[in-house]
């Protein structure tokens, strides 16, 4: 159960060594720098040192409570990243897959709109542009506030 913010790349295999021992399901998500325009040179990520670590830990703890996770990990990079480089990862461990999948999805929705990171695209022409927040990310977050508690009894009975 940990959250880290770093400039260095992370090694997914190393992160998962010993992670979630005894769990029946482990889900991982990795976010990668994407170039939608074909003109991007790099992505620069700014964050709020101190608050970022605290926010990531809070969201991880909340996910663990809500979905009954036995383990979770969040690693988020900052600084300058090239197209194709991993930006961040979340890993969740639970008895069953539904809780692990849902918790990873929940964490991503929180990280997208409530963790203090700001992305700036650096173009091949040298121009820089702050990435705007998306209304769809806000909508994705609101579904967790609207939905009833998880896990439901049906999911708890799921043998997988």
């Amino acid at each position: 159960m940990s959250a880290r913010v770093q400039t260095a790349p992370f090694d997914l295999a190393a992160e998962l060594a010993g992670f979630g021992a005894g769990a029946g399901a482990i889900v991982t998500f990795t976010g990668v720098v994407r170039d939608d325009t074909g003109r991007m040179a790099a992505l620069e990520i700014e964050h709020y040192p101190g608050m970022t670590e605290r926010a990531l830990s809070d969201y991880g703890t909340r996910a663990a409570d809500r979905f009954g996770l036995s383990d979770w990990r969040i690693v988020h990079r900052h600084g300058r990243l090239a197209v194709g480089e991993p930006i961040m990862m979340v890993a969740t461990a639970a008895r069953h897959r539904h809780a692990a999948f849902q918790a990873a999805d929940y964490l991503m929705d929180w990280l997208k709109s409530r963790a203090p990171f700001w992305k700036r695209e650096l173009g091949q022409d040298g121009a820089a542009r702050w990435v705007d927040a998306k209304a769809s990310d806000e909508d994705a977050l609101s579904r967790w506030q609207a939905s009833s508690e998880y896990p439901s009894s049906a999911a708890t009975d799921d043998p997988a």
Partner: protein
Amino acid sequence: MTLDVLYFAWLRERIGQPRERIETSAATVRDLIADLAARDDWHAAAFADLAAIRCAVDQQLADLDAPLAGAREVAFFPPMTGG
């Protein structure tokens, strides 16, 4: 009271510095914004559109009507784009 005010992303660029220590009698975040915006043109431009601004009081997300009593650090920034 003395407050450390932090700025991130385009707010930092518009104001021209990442942080400043100020004296203010603002009771809420909204009062603090009015105080800051009145200081110079750069602050005024940064705070022109309140709908585009988010804030944290002592590193916890807060809304514009949040009280500042006892606060030490207030941060202003645009909507977050992590993940």
